[in-house]
């Protein structure tokens, strides 16, 4: 199924047939107990699934076929994602798939491609991302972790944070400062580092959901071969920004809001909230916020289907999606009365719904991936062209 010919078959398939095929595969292979996981899963939970996908050749739907990907076109890729979201398939530790692979395919040397891509496909290299630092959150370009040239190596010192699933990874791709002079964007380099290199310490961060999704990563005189640079010294910022463009439609996905709404609906049915006209009014308002968001999302997806690219305007979807999600969880909490203050959930016909947990878990969506304040700055500048 992974040879070039089979791959092309996906894109010529009838949409419904493709959708059914993917769905059936999930039903058959994805563990029931991992559906709609309320937290980001660790390797010990989701690793087996990673390997199942790897074996099936479905790990990297967006990669070109020549590099072992499914080579899906925009339309099929969206269906693929959609089926997964609807079925509640959890995210794997997918940084290698969504970030490092595309990066190497575009900017990597032949040696880098030959070395890294197969190991990503095989589940041998699991990646985490070293961008943010304690002092560089919204203002990423101000990052301070330094890589100083020493012969054929860099000596890396610094402190990365918000590194998702670092404890599950054995590789980190990161932005480091290789030049302290001039514009801060221009002295940044993209570097790949094995996490077992001496001098690296990973410390989990417990989040408000009491889950260790993130970690800090400390670098103390870490020696990294210069060949591990991707795209050339001091080109890191440009590359990282291009990668963000690649991801843009995903930050616009309405999945957070839709998922929260489906949980609210389950809860509403199970505790007869639809008999209350006040609840119905609020529910409908949110339902329309989501329907209208979905109409907007599809409008952006059309661009991709036409072969176009999506610009900074996609920030509007991110803002609307995440803020609607938060309003949904707030209605959930308010409708749950005292249950709004307890950890445990309300048992519904469609599984456990945890109103307080939802309120807490929806907090970071307006912070990460560029806080909504930063998204608004972007729209003001890049779309409304307001003066500075």
């Amino acid at each position, binding site marked *: 199924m992974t040879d070039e010919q089979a791959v092309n078959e996906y894109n010529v398939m009838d949409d419904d047939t493709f959708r059914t095929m993917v769905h059936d595969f999930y039903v058959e292979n994805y563990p029931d107990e991992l559906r709609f996981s309320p937290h980001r899963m660790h390797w010990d939970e989701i690793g087996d699934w990673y390997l199942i996908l790897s074996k099936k050749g479905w790990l990297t739907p967006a990669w070109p076929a020549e590099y072992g990907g499914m080579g899906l076109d925009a339309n099929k890729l969206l269906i693929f994602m959609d089926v997964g979201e609807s079925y509640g398939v959890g995210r794997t530790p997918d940084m290698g798939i969504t970030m490092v692979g595309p990066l190497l395919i575009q900017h990597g040397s032949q040696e880098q491609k030959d070395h890294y891509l197969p190991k990503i496909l095989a589940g041998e290299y699991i990646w985490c991302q070293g961008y943010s630092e304690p002092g560089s959150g919204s203002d990423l370009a101000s990052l301070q972790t330094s890589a100083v040239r020493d012969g054929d190596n860099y000596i890396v010192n610094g402190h990365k944070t918000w590194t998702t699933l670092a404890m599950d990874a054995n590789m980190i791709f990161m932005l480091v400062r290789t030049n302290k002079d001039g514009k801060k964007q221009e002295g940044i380099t993209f570097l790949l580092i094995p996490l077992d290199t001496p001098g690296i310490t990973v410390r989990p961060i417990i989040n408000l959901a009491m889950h260790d999704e993130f970690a800090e990563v400390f670098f103390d005189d870490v020696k990294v071969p210069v060949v591990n640079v991707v795209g050339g010294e001091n080109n890191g910022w440009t590359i990282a920004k291009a990668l963000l463009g690649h991801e843009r439609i995903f930050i616009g996905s309405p999945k957070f809001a839709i998922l929260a709404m489906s949980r609210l609906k389950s809860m509403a049915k199970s505790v007869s909230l639809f008999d209350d006209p006040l609840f119905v009014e609020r529910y409908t308002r949110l339902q*329309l916020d989501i329907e209208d968001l979905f*109409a907007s999302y599809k*409008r952006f997806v059309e661009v991709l289907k036409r072969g176009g690219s999506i610009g900074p305007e996609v920030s509007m979807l991110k803002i609307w999606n995440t803020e609607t999600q938060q309003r949904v969880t707030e209605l959930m909490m308010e409708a749950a009365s005292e249950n709004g203050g307890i950890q445990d959930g309300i048992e519904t016909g469609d599984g456990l719904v945890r109103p307080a947990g939802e309120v807490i878990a929806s907090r970071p969506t307006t912070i990460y991936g560029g806080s909504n*304040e930063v998204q608004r700055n972007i729209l*003001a500048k890049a779309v409304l*062209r307001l*003066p*500075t």
Partner: protein
Amino acid sequence: MEDISLQSRIDVLSEQQVLIQDSAVAFIAQDEELKKTRDNRFVQPGFDQQTWKEMAELGWLGFLIPEQYGGIGLGFDDLHTVLIQLGKGLVPAPFVATAVIAASVLVNGDNEAVKKDRLPALVAGEWKPALAWQEARGSMCVKAEQVKVVDGKLSGRKIFVPDAGGADDFIVSAASAEGTELYLVNKDAAGLSIDYEQRVDGGFYGQLSFDRVAVGDKVAGIALAEQVLAAALDTGRVAASVELLGVMTRALEITVDYTAQRVQFDKPIGSFQALQHKMVDLFILSEISRSVVLQTIGLFDSQTSAEGRAAAASQVKARCSDAALQITKSAIQLHGGIGYTDEANIGLYLKKAMYLASWLGNASAHRARYAELTL
């Protein structure tokens, strides 16, 4: 005025749509200063007869009317580019009431003779019918109850008939012994009296009182009347929503433009972050509205159940009504003092939004209807 909408960034128009849009853009550019809009405020009939003629000449009045009746029989897909411009230009003309709603009733009615006779006149701008269906404030009920027809004579009262002062005939829904029927009634018919209510935008609603008024031709009988009405009103709701989209789009453009020029504390006020974020939120509202509009007109141009169209009409009318009000109100605030003067045009946008948002069911009413239809 710079176009800040996402249309040029992410949407694709057909060649035909571009042609139609260009002519609509040129049309409203003739009155960029909104002189006609101002001149026709608060004086009967509340709109500009000359503008109506020009729209007829452009063929716009026949958009939704099949070619066999003199129209051009195109869909919302093409029409919406015109409606947006009518909203942007605050064009003083009862386009939605007459060329969308009344036309739809006539086209979908079952009196072939009436269609052959009247529709070409409507398309030519020579005859303006207005639909009189509503009997209670806030009602969306298409069943006639209060206005009755007995032995060919109408009695009762219809309210909120837009631009009644410019109509030649009314299409009136009335309860016969068997059910709702639709009749043409001449404006000058004996026993018909009209009271006018001034709208905030400067137009007028008519209140029609019928005292044993002789009906004219029947437009639709009991088998069809209610569904014809429902279809026409939902089509009208979509059209009014598209017009609202135009209103909010231009109001935002004017505001972004103004705040980029207006200097206070030695900086253009559009550079202040709090104002920028406010305008971004308004921009998002306008683009969310545009997305729903585009989705809805696609749905209305395809085969969809009456219930599906009703839900979609409520969805779009709820969003556009809310968004237009929020954007135009915030636009006043962002303008500061000058925004509260009648001489600044931005206030005209607020008032148009207030009229269109409350006509044919406001946002709350349509959310409630959407819930009834979908829950």
